[in-house]
């Protein structure tokens, strides 16, 4: 076992540097900010761009691919925690909601309650094509529609699903880190 650990220590580091992750010029296409004012207000309330931010993820009806990519942000390759960004267990601890999926009728109330439980100032970022406008499920009897039909959205991260780099870029950009 000791041998293995030593070989890993000598090996390459799995975590990718920020520059390597967000250098692709195409990344900026994935982010769509719709409410500059609230993001500005959020940043000034935070008092500086290097403060830690807590995120609560809410799946409101996705196919689970978006959630897996958000989950991947926590693995050692993307390691979002090094930027002081944590995923938390309760909306009461959160500064930002990451919402995925077309909001289903069955999740509408849960999403609204989660939003109401999140203290201000708070940001809502909708992730993926379905969260934008319902995507492929738009118009279904069981779907309410994009996230904005239920709670106000400040920014969208596009993709089906967005890659972890795109999520990381979007989140850091919204926070004014890059």
């Amino acid at each position, binding site marked *: 076992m000791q041998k293995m650990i030593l070989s890993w220590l000598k090996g390459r580091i799995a975590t990718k540097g920020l520059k390597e992750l967000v250098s692709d010029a195409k990344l900026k296409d994935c982010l769509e900010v719709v409410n500059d004012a609230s993001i500005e207000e959020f940043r000034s309330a935070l008092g500086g761009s290097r403060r830690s931010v807590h995120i609560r993820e809410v799946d409101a009806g*996705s*196919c689970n*691919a978006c959630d897996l990519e958000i989950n991947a942000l926590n693995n*050692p*390759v993307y390691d979002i925690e090094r930027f002081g960004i944590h995923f938390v*267990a309760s909306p009461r601890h959160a500064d930002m909601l990451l919402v995925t999926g077309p909001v289903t*009728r069955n999740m509408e109330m849960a999403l609204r309650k989660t939003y109401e439980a999140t203290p201000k100032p708070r940001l809502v970022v909708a992730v993926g094509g379905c969260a934008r406008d319902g995507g492929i499920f738009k118009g279904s*009897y069981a779907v309410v529609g994009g996230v904005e039909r239920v709670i106000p959205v400040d920014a969208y991260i596009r993709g089906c699903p967005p890659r972890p780099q795109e999520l990381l870029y979007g989140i850091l950009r919204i926070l004014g880190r890059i």
Partner: protein
Amino acid sequence: MDERKPYIDEIKREFHGDVLSEDTSTPGEAYLTIRKESLPRIANFLHEVRYSTPLLSMFGTDERALDGTYKVYTVFQIPRKPVFIILKVHLKEGELEFPSITPLMYAGSPFEREMQDMFGFIPVGNPDTRRMVLHENFPRGIHPLRKDFGYSTTLDKAEGQYPFHTIEGEGMLEVPVGPVHAGIIEPGHFRFSVAGEPIINLEIRLHYKHKGIEKLMETLDFNEGCRVAEMVSGDSAVGHVTAYCQAVEKIAGIETPMLARYNRMIALELERLYNHIADIGSMSTDASFLFGAARAGILREEVMNLNDRLTGSRFLKGLVAPGGVTRDLFTARDDIISTLKEVGEGLKELVAILLSSASFLDRVKTTGVLNKKTAEDLAVTGPPARASGIDSDMRRDVPYEAYGEVRFKVPVYKEGDVFCRLSVRIDEAFESISIIEQVLKKAVRDPIKTDVGARHAVPLPYRYALGCVEGWRGAILYWIMTAPGDKLYRCKIKDPSFCNWPGLSYAVLGNIVPDFPLCNKSFNLSYAGNDL
């Protein structure tokens, strides 16, 4: 000789007069139209008395446009044989009652409750008549899968309270969890009844993600349906779309080229590999062994990036299409082989460390036991079934694509605890790497796709067939019926999670609540695939 014949003959002999007609026009599938009253008896004969065959699926159709009746299909597979027996019952308008199979085989209950919501059928004798798919916000009396209900119907908002089962007694406590959970996972509600530490009862309420996928399918043609199949459960995109395409190809009478089959196998095994590695990691997380989780995270990422390089999608979306595949993965043979070699070595190291950690083993051994009888009764499938001693794997039993040409082991364990489910996943991950290596050694010069386009081999309307794939979670089943103009008349999707969720609620009994995440991760079920 037709493999189906002895089984059909036996059922006809045993239930003389109950079998009204038979249809064997689709290869491997035997449709027996039976008298409504005989459904539980014949189902029980297949399931318990004679073959101990698992219930694979049960669903309704609205075929009023064809012959004025609704129908209930009950699908069984003869164990270890590529033979599907499908019992068909006609329900006349106004007489939607049918005898429930639940009192004889519990696995029928969720299927019957689903039909009750979606079609308004009445399973007489099912002790659980609560609504399931449609939550309280849906007005009563609507049945979305009936043909006179439009996909985009705007519905009023209703209110109500779901009647959970309550366990009463001194010191009993209820712990409600969800639908918004603590981790980055999908929504569902778990209600634990505990006495002190141990769980006495767990009731799982799902369908928070119900999006009307089966209804959506009925508005699409079979080429569009294939993109929706990839979005049923994102982490099983290849499994779902392959099962879907198999059904379409069976109806159209199309033979897919060998090269396309090999490509599909590579994609299916890559999907199994990245998901099993992720599960090994998340079981480490939930046993608080974060080192294991980190290593698994890195390995999984390598497979995901390989997927991305191969298909432009980390979830391998867009590769499988009716008739074959859209690109040839053999062109990246060297990349696949070298990446998998590295991943295989990394996984071997990780497994060695996990299995030599006493504190980790202490958490996973004897935790969350699902015994074999319960697993059989609930028709549990996939790794949880194999961990509980049920020797079934569609890749071996119904060798689709070209699985008959490769050698692989189907791991089966007896104890049914978290450790066994972990072991099944570890073994299967290595088998997946070996299958991909075997496939890549094959040399074929085939086209990658046969055209199933509108102008060629048009599937006849109102024809039906099953598609069946052993996804990484278990058997994925698609039943498709075509409508005129290449449209889908009905598409029943069965994700393995649908039958495995009840298995989880039994596996946790007697365990402490803090071990629930570990048990849950050892099953790792899809909410999206269950809720549709």
